[in-house]
């Protein structure tokens, strides 16, 4: 019996090994064929070109970094402030109303965000900036910012609540106002939990595919706020269904997957490190 349970437990490890194995084994051939530097630092991706296909993924890497940074820049302040509101400033009854709303926001499927973005954001951006089409990095950033909001709020709220009440009482007793206490005592004390929230948000944003595929335009440009762009995730997603099996194009998609996997693993290690430090 024990052996059976051990096998169940080992399945999680086996899954990680299988995923790593598949991504590495299927990702390497194209990188070897194209050349590591030309693959990672090439600025043109033109996989559909019959005579002279180009496989440079620098535009995707930069877009993923810019897009994630933008989403964090918008999502983290709003999320952190909302978390502070829920944990400290809100009347309990109001907090009890807002919290389920945040949970609901977390549960809405990503394609729904993508669709609303398509219908609402794209025309707005097109009209505002007089563009031929609204499918831009900006639209993707806005959608991502909304999508990472719930996880940032709930993780930072937990962190803020975990700060011992005595810290705040001491600060209040010394004559600090409530807000001074929350922002200069509570927030620094919850620093590592809030960092964890940010790192989690980065992970979410960099890994999201379907929602931003619907609003980012999917042209392999170097990133610009008002340009149609492709992320690492959408580069895989948008060509996955029509690339021929065994072609260099399909193998290159797996290589992009491998690059994305490495990014995610770095973020995971960082997250684990932050959480471990918090425990201590």
């Amino acid at each position: 019996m024990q052996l059976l349970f051990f096998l169940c437990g080992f399945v999680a490890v086996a899954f990680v090994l299988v995923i790593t194995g598949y991504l590495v084994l299927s990702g390497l051939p194209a990188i070897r064929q194209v050349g590591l530097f030309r693959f990672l630092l090439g600025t043109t991706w033109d996989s559909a070109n019959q005579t002279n296909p180009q496989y440079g993924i620098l535009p995707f890497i930069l877009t993923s970094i810019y897009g994630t940074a933008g989403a964090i820049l918008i999502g983290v302040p709003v999320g952190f402030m909302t978390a502070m509101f829920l944990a400290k400033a809100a009347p309990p009854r109001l907090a009890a109303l807002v919290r389920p709303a945040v949970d609901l926001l977390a549960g809405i499927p990503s394609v729904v965000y993508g669709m609303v973005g398509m219908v609402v954001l794209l025309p707005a951006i097109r009209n505002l900036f007089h563009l031929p089409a609204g499918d831009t990095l900006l639209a993707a950033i806005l959608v991502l910012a909304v999508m990472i909001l719930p996880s940032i709020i709930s993780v930072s709220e937990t962190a803020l609540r975990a700060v011992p009440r005595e810290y705040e009482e001491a600060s209040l007793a010394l004559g600090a106002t409530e807000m001074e206490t929350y922002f200069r005592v509570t927030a620094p004390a919850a620093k590592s939990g809030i960092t964890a929230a940010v790192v989690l948000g980065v992970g979410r944003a960099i890994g999201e595919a379907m929602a931003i595929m619907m609003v980012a335009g999917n042209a392999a440009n170097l990133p610009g706020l008002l340009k149609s762009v492709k992320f690492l995730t959408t580069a895989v997603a948008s060509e996955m269904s029509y690339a021929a099996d065994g072609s260099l194009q399909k193998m290159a998609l797996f290589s992009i997957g491998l690059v994305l996997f490495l990014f995610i693993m770095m973020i995971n290690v960082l997250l684990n490190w932050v959480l471990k430090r918090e425990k201590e």
Partner: protein
Amino acid sequence: MEGTTVLTAQTAPAAERRTGASALSRGRRLYDTGLRSLLWLSAGLTCALLLALIGYILWRGVPQLSWEFLSTAESVRRGTLGILPALANTLYVVVVTLAIALPLGVGAAVYLTEYAEHHRLVEGIEFASETLSGIPSILYALVGYLAFCKTLGLGYSLLAASMTLAMMNLPTIIRTTQESLKTVPQSYREGALGLGSGKWHMIRTVVLPGSIDGIVTGCILAVGRIVGESAVLLYVGGMGGSMNHFFASPDKFIHSSGATLTVQLYVFAKERAMMDPAFAVAVVLLVLTFGINLAAKAAGKRLRQK
């Protein structure tokens, strides 16, 4: 005269306490009010976002809903749309995924809390489970495609998608089950063992029944993720809009492909530029999400009450 001075002497501190500000410099008062209003603003923005999102989807989607839309398959001949296949496929995927992930997840959690003795091993398994939960769905889609569609030869099929989703949801089930196993008092275990029960008998009759709430919560959370997932279902499960073979003849269990609700929505909105039915599907998804959230909350409350 004297009366009034006494009065002010008494009321002034009270007023001071009420505003709490008279002792503050102007800068500090500004800091306080400024940040307080920022907090309210941010929370208001978050709520407004949600309300606007839901309101807009309902406004666009509800008029498009009809019994026919929900209860038939799309018919080119009659020119009607229907999402019955998508609903059925979603149900199929949820059931098959849980059938795979639940035993594995609960087993793993039991091993971690009841059996495991090597500290290193527990850490390894927990690290693996955390890693799994951090991997984005598009990578699961890639691996699912390679491992199940190609290597196992399942092709685009809901079974392959369910197996991929089982990998994806394993960590959720492990974590919630583990948490609730830890709430079963140690004395129960000792009591059972002391009465001469074997370890497996003790787990089966005492520990698992006592932690059923956590297992249920884990399942509900997993269902929520499965219903909301799209990348895996699109690239591993396929996007056929007709009624799944599985429901016609269950022996086609292995090779049946098809679109679930999220994939159907994606196909409507992005591939076919049909926004109205897409919004109708979104309403269905919202209702499901809302129901799953309520169920998870109810199960979580029961868990905490223990």
